[in-house]
């Protein structure tokens, strides 16, 4: 537990989009997928997922439909819309820019300044 990192504000939406981009998923499945693709390194309280999901649906980035899960239970499945796909691309690019900027800032040596 202790080696899990707190999510930065705003990054949950990006993670959800990324998880869903790999194929339609229900809420719990999204959580598992995030764990899987992040190597279980991120701490997400389970319930916190849902406000994000509803927000993304409202923004038209995700669409939802009811179906049956692999456990044979009724569940709501989410998939990306085309707007969602576009947003994911933009956000990923943004994120990469941010990471490299912060990274180079933090990695700067005294003689480089």
């Amino acid at each position, binding site marked *: 537990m202790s080696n899990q990192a707190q999510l930065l504000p705003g990054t949950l939406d990006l993670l959800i989009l990324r998880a869903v981009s790999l194929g339609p998923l229900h*809420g719990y499945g999204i959580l598992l997928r995030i764990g899987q693709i992040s190597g279980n390194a991120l701490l997400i309280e389970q319930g*916190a997922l*849902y*406000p994000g999901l509803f927000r993304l649906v409202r923004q038209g980035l995700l669409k939802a439909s009811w179906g049956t899960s692999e*456990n044979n239970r009724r569940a709501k499945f989410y998939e990306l819309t085309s707007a969602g796909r576009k947003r994911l691309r933009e956000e990923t690019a943004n994120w990469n820019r941010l990471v490299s900027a912060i990274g180079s800032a933090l990695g700067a040596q005294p003689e480089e300044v």
Partner: protein
Amino acid sequence: MKVLNSLRFRMATLFHRSQMNAEMEEELRSHIQHRADDLERSGLPRAEAERRARIEFGGHVRYKDESREAAGGTLIESLLEDVTFAVRQMRRSPGFALTAVLILTLGIAANVIVFGVVQALVLRQLDLPHADRVMTLQPKNGGPFLSYPEVRDVRDQNSVFSAVAAFEVQDFGLEANGVTRPVWGCEVSGQYSEVVGIKPFLGRLLNRADDDHPGASDAAVLSWSGWNSDFGADPNIVGKTVRIDKHPYTIVGVTPEGFYGTEKIGVSDICVPMANEASLDGVNWLDSRSYKNLFSIVRIKDGVTLPQVQAELDTIAARIAQQHPKEEEGLALKVARPGLIGDFIGGPVRGFLAGVMALAGIVLLAACANIGSLFAARTADRAREIAIRLAIGSSRWRILRQVVVEAVMISILGGACACALAWMALTGLASWQPPSRFNFKFQVLPQPSLILIAFLISVVAGVLFGVMPLRQIFKTDPNATIKSGGSQSSAVRRWALRDVLLAAQIALCCVTVTAAFVSLRGLGKALTMDLGFNTKNVLRTQFDLNQAGYNVDAAADHFQRQLLERVSQIPGVEAVGYANTTPLAFDAGVAAVFPQQTVDFRPSSTAFDTYYYDVSPGYLTASGTRLLEGRDVSFSDTPKTPPVAIVNQEFARRLFHSEHAVGHYFKNRSGVSIQVVGIMADGKHFTLSEDPQPAAFFPISQKADTKTTLIVRTQRDTADMVAAIRKVVSDLDRAVPIRESGPWSSQLALNLFPSQVATVALGVFGAFGLLLSIAGTFGLASYTVSKRLREMSIRVALGAQAKQILSAALGRMLILLGSGSAVGILLGVAASRLLSAIVYQASAHDPFVLAAVACTAVLTGLLSVAGPVKRALHADPATLLREQ
């Protein structure tokens, strides 16, 4: 676990609320099930797996709330939830809710009723097509009346009005189906229908041709109410003939329902052309510039602005003044908002209503302060609950919202009750007639828009007192509060918002109490003041012989003298006399008085205007008017003997600079010298609040009049005596329609009416203010005592004296009461200046008033802290300490 259970309960109650809610619920449950499946696969028993899954899921309610907000459009739903919560809160403390609703009902009702009256009398336009173009034309200075030639000149010379009309309200003897009854009628000039611009309900309205010249037409138009009350809404009325003051008229039309003329306070039954006035009024004033008796109403052309109208009126008035310097010198005209006789009574009425509106606002503010401090106290009690809710993830805004929703709900409940109350009050007011021979009718029927106003006031009031606990909620520190067991130890010594609120509330209530006492005192003075005559055991009977076909000639004089003789023979009659009218009846003549040496009779050489009455011998005795010097009028004063008059002290002082003026002379407008033969005491002539006015009595035998007011002083005023007098009148001539007959004192009710209205209105506000301050002080005092009972009992146990306990418990209370009352009385004194316009001799500097207000404040304070003080003093330390 308990928290979870209550959360599940809440989930259950919310479950059916909507499709979306249900889906959201199912989705979250599905999530937990999936998680439980996984946990079960890892070896846990199913029940334990589900429990773990729920715990791992986290703050269920919070996430659901957030999800709902994230999904958008669910504000209403979360509001609904708040409403449910508020209802539960109210059910838990019904006493509090009931008190709050009651206080608000009164506070809001006061505002809605006052607003209803303001809306009807001031804000609402006349119910006429393009009412914004209709204005009252009136002189810039003095009374509201114009002469016919003035109106005619404006009508013929202007380019800014599409129509100009004059009208006069007149009492008529209306004879239909063989019965003559006195009704209120209206003489209107030719363009009246064009000014008001309405369509007739039946037949046609009067037009220019009807008013072309005297006798041009015998057409008469009934009003809706006249048609209903006098003719039973006969659908075949058009074409029927009636007689007005013995002259035949043909009904040509009926005005529609809802048309009340252009004044909001009266309604007449029948309208006739003004050209015929000489035959109805007995005087031909159509060409007289000095006979000012008409109201004028105009319709402004489209596209013409008020400054343009004023410029044109200035030009016309200047021209009239130049052409007729003798009568019209200094004439100036203006237009004013119609409905309340222009600015004449409109001004004072608007002023008074603004004052009352302000008082109503103050009462509502005080009520809000009151309930606000109760709310704040209650929030302090709920500190622990609020802390727990903060701890489990509720946001402070959410808690505040719930408090505000509760407040607004209470206040909307109050508003709904207030609406019902106001509706009843206004309907009652609209159907009520003030005590008067005039047919006053207040067009104040409640409008649906009042509901909206009540709703708005409620919401504003609710938010106002709902946000008062704001600071408390936002500074609550969950940790500290839960640890300290919910009592805020720090609050004891600090001045809290509720203390300030209490002081403010006491101050506001003192204002209303002061206003109430001032007007009560004024009314008391008005009831006992010297009117200049004595109405005790005096009967007054009024009619106009003109309505029975008499002219101003020997026949009328003969009738009146016979009446005098016969009535004086009725057993029990002490004195009897008659006059054309009496003081305070609102129809006394006003005439210009000129010094004896005057030769040029233009307005600027007038000494002053005087009220005048034509009286018979014996009138002074019968009416109880004191003759100070000289002689009474006598029947030996005839048109052939030199003109004489009795004048009052004020008249003598103003003209002769001495009250001993018997034998002196003055002149009237026609240049006739009149000798003063008697001096009488000053009295009231138009309103009770007026300063001494000059007045003159002329012998009616020198100037006959068909208008007759019979004054009979009896040993006792009884209904028998009224019947006997009526019988004498009808024995002399059955056709004479008696306008009114009864005790003079009750006929003066209209004069007392403004002070009475003011006293009732202010009295209600005063009583309500008092109630509020008692409730507020009592509430806060008991709260303070109960909060500190434990501390105080420890002090008692340690040997503190009663005095110390008292000052500890209620010292601050007394400071609040004292300072609040002092500020309130000062404000009240300042505000009462406004009252003096309506209430006779209203003065807040009256020591009686100040003493009464101070006494009331002290008594109220003592009364409301007595209970809590007793409780504090009688607290038994042993019992109390054991209990806690």
